[in-house]
């Protein structure tokens, strides 16, 4: 999994750069994709219609060229059943609403008929009742989805039109999104609603069918959502502090494929330092709260409680589908194209994963100069432990934790934990010198106590003792020799002033 992507990575990165170049070309129309380097100059003359086509093609072709055909087909077949339009168009909106109205009437009729039956107490109709109830639930679901998708088509168009500063839509956007700040990356609450889709229109029919047959309901939805990568902009509600590896969002999660929707952000979005921008001066912020604070400086209208309030969650009625993220890097296990795709839990995870796995490690620990990190929080975490608590094995491997070292030692034959030499009180040279004096001092004792020894066993010692004259001066000799003589004289007690090192010498 990790070797194969290399080749594809190169190709994709090249394609990415070319895409980026195209992005620059499209900047006028396609600002949203490149928030980091966009000069937020509103272009008053720009209309919505010339914005949208490149938007779709770009987003589709960027990483999923294989889908292009499909989407275009779907695009062609949009006005079929539900006439779900891609963009904000009052007419399609109206037709959507009327469809909803129709549907609601239909449900009403069914419910009424059920009530009628109950009133007349008609027997033997229980089976029919069940069928009708099923019908009602199916219809209600249908209405719900229709409603969401209508709103979904509405929202991105708000954003787009915001970019093009269409005054009417700005107002409309202001209605939907709470503050009038420039919501480039709507708050997370918005994101839940924002499931804009080109393909959704055509997929919807299938969706309905799957609902009615109640089989693998999510699959089709996921498919269509997969196709709509890129549109969903990111928001960072809280700045990352100490993010651990587990933030990547795999651990312990084992969602069956299809039980969640997958979103994929673009590289530029992931790496953007700021995700919230001031509409007036263009200044970028990491958090929308900071942006709101900033907006206060632009006039009193931004100081109202409503403007300062956190955008509240809207449309709670929406069935909350679990959302997971895909890494834009082709070949990555976190990329949805991967066979064993493992989704990322949050946008934060996406950011950290992308930086850790697919970016240069530009932060180098200043203390050890060896460890490199691409996420600054990782560096900070490392610096907390760098140089401290080094657990060293006899083979030279170091560990940050004792249990890791002991695990290593248990695994390999003959390895032992090394004792750090800092612990020993005396260091190197002086230690050895002292040791040798001690040794000769003790041998001296044996010799001087038994000068006339005949034993074969300690001969070697005796020969050494021959030149023991320096022992008088050795500091340890006092300890060793001081009481030699006392055994001979059976004194009641004796006092030994320090320095009586040669007290007991008899010859």
């Amino acid at each position, binding site marked *: 999994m990790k070797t194969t992507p290399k080749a594809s990575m190169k190709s994709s990165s090249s394609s990415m750069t070319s895409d980026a170049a195209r992005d620059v070309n499209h900047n006028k129309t396609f600002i949203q994709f490149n928030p980091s380097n966009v000069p937020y100059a509103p272009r008053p003359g720009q209309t919505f219609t010339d914005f949208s086509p490149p938007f779709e093609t770009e987003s589709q072709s960027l990483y999923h060229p294989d889908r292009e055909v499909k989407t275009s087909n779907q695009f062609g077949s949009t006005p079929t059943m539900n006439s779900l339009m891609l963009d904000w168009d009052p007419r399609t909106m109206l037709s959507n609403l009327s469809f909803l109205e129709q549907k609601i009437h239909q449900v009403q009729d069914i419910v009424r008929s059920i009530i009628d039956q109950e009133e007349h107490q008609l027997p033997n109709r229980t089976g029919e009742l069940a069928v009708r109830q099923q019908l009602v639930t199916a219809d209600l679901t249908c209405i719900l989805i229709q409603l969401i998708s209508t709103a979904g088509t509405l929202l991105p168009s708000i954003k787009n039109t915001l970019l093009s500063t269409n005054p009417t839509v700005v107002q409309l956007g202001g209605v939907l999104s709470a503050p009038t700040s420039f919501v480039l990356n709507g708050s997370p609450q918005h994101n839940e609603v924002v499931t804009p889709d080109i393909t959704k229109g055509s997929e919807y029919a299938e969706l309905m069918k799957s609902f009615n047959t109640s089989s693998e309901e999510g699959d089709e939805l996921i498919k269509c959502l997969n196709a709509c990568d890129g549109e969903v902009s990111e928001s960072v509600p809280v700045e990352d502090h100490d993010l651990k590896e587990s933030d990547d969002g795999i651990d312990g999660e084992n969602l069956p494929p299809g039980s969640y929707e997958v979103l994929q952000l673009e590289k530029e979005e992931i790496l953007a330092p700021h995700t919230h921008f001031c509409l007036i001066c263009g200044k970028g912020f990491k958090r929308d709260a900071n942006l709101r604070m900033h907006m206060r400086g632009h006039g009193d209208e931004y100081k109202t409680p409503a403007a300062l309030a956190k955008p509240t969650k809207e449309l709670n009625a929406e069935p909350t589908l679990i959302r997971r993220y895909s890494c834009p890097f082709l070949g990555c296990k976190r990329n949805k194209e991967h066979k064993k795709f493992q989704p990322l839990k949050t946008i934060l995870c996406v950011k950290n994963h992308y930086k850790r796995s697919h970016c240069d490690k530009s932060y180098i620990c200043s203390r050890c100069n060896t460890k490199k990190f691409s996420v600054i929080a990782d560096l900070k975490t490392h610096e907390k432990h760098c140089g401290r608590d080094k657990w060293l094995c006899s083979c030279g491997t170091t560990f940050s934790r*004792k*249990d890791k070292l*002991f695990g290593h*030692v*248990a695994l390999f034959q*003959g*390895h*032992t*934990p090394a*004792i750090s030499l800092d*612990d*020993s009180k005396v260091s190197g040279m002086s230690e050895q010198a002292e*040791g040798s004096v*001690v*040794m000769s*001092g*003790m*041998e001296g*004792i*044996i010799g001087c*106590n*038994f000068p006339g*020894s005949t*034993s074969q*066993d*300690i001969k*070697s*010692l005796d020969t050494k003792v021959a030149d023991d004259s320096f022992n008088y001066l050795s500091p*340890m000799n006092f*300890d*060793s020799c*001081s*009481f*030699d003589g*006392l*055994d001979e004289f059976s*004194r*009641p*007690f*004796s*006092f*030994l002033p*320090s320095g009586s090192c040669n007290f007991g010498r008899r010859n």
Partner: protein
Amino acid sequence: MSANRSTELPTEMRTRDGRMLPSDAITTVLSVDLLIQILDRIRDPRDRKSWRLVSRGFLRAESLHRRELRPLRRETLPALLRRYVALERLDLSACPSIDDACLAAVAAAAEGLKVVCLARANRLGWRGLEALVAACPRLDTVDLSHSVGVGDREAAALAEAKGLREIRLDKCLAITDVGLAKVAVGCPGLERLGIKWCLEISDIGIELLAKKCPEIKFLDISYLKVTNESLRSISSLEKLEDLYMVGCSFVDDEGLQLLSNGSKSLQCIDVSRCDNVSSRGLTSLVEGNQCLQKINAGDCFPDLESSFLSKLSCVKNTLTVLKLDGFQVSSSSLRVIGGSCKNLVEIGLSKCTGVTDESISELVAICVDLRTVDLTCCHHLTDNALYSIADNSLKFLSACSELTTLKLGLCSDISDNGLAHIGSNCGELLELDLYRCGRVTDEGLAAIASGCKRLRRLNLCYCTQITDNGLNNLSCLEELSDIELRGLARITSSGITAVAIGCKSLVELDLKRCYSVDDAGLWALARYALNLRQLTISYCPVTGLGLCNLLGSLRCLQDVKLVHLSWVSIEGFELALRASCGKLKKLKLLSGLRDVLSSELLQMLQTHGCRIRWVNKPLVFKG
């Protein structure tokens, strides 16, 4: 052995007659080989001493034959090592001031060493151990317990001896998991390991030990801060027989359950003072290990549940030692114990409320093999609660003629009559504890002294009726080595003198709060108690002169407690301690003296490996 001794004595006499030329035919004709074969059968050290005095030939044969040595002084060490060339076991624990240089020299002189005891060698470091390991390739057992200087580095030095099978590291406080890992990796054939009180060792170290040393049979992890995880690792030791885990308060019933799942070889387990262990854990332990021989569950939990007692029948054939200190043992439960464990040799029932004369009599009637009975009672029980254990119990107990240890501390109803039973029937008694048995008088002591000739340890603390006459009676006990006489205000120096002269094996003596013992007693001790190693004379009215004489004369003295000697001047302390320099290992002094005594003296004591414990307590007279 005694027969041997009697035969040797005339030989000795003869050699003294013809000192220069042992002309006796037997001593010259017997070859060294034959002498050594005879020596194989002589084990008693006193017989050996007689043997050495026969002739030079006998002395040489003995020195060639001798395998073990326990020197008491460092000065004699070189001569001893020179004489005994075939030493295998060397115990240096009684030898003060053992340092690196000394150990290196010893190792060089005795290369055949297999067993070395270096307990309480305060000055020992890694260099000495390195030298030892390098010089003695056959090293098998090393005891470093209570050696203050021993840490990871020393453990690493020790671990170089690949063939080590037993290591004792009790209370080597500086040893951590790293040191243990060194030992575990270095000595894969380790069979017996004691790491009691090595507080730095954790689960991680134990886990590694269990992985690296599968041969372990004996393991002491008492007082370690280890959890059930350690027991999980330990349960993988398939050959484990003895497990001591006193005071492991992080271990609970689940841990014991883990033990029951694992080793089937377990024979001895000590879970005393493990606060979180309950009857449930013990029950599972007994169920899981059918070969248990010794169980010590003292001071764990108060309630003895019938479930545990009924499960004792699982191990009824093997169980020989059962200690239930601090439990509430009723007569019925004692009956169950007696009924299911007929082979009991030792039972510990100290601090057990509810033990009565009847239950003891029943137990003794069933368990005829009982040798050691501990009936010491808890001091928070009133005397009234103890009334039940009285002379009648002793009458029954005296039926156990093999009894070696009897602890009757705080059983205040014990009187001379009971002791007379013991004295007349228990000739094998080695240890007797009569702590605070206030009704015991000189007569009881006389009965014990005449009956229990082999007594080694005797505790008479606070038996306040005892006088010098009692001590005079004791002086016929030659093997008595430990005597505790705390708070006996009636005994004087004359009694101490009698003990010092009579009890030749005296090693430990406690005279704390003997308010009538003065310098004369110390002079007698200095003159006669040459083997005295541990002495407490706190609160005694002795002067500096007596103290100086004592500390200067006694060459084996290692541990002295000198608290509240109000009659001793500062100069007296100074001189006495200087005289003791190089011998003392432990010293207990009033903390007020710390600033008064010269720093030079204190430093000297320290360099000689003497640890001083400073205590600060008010002078209170207790009559």
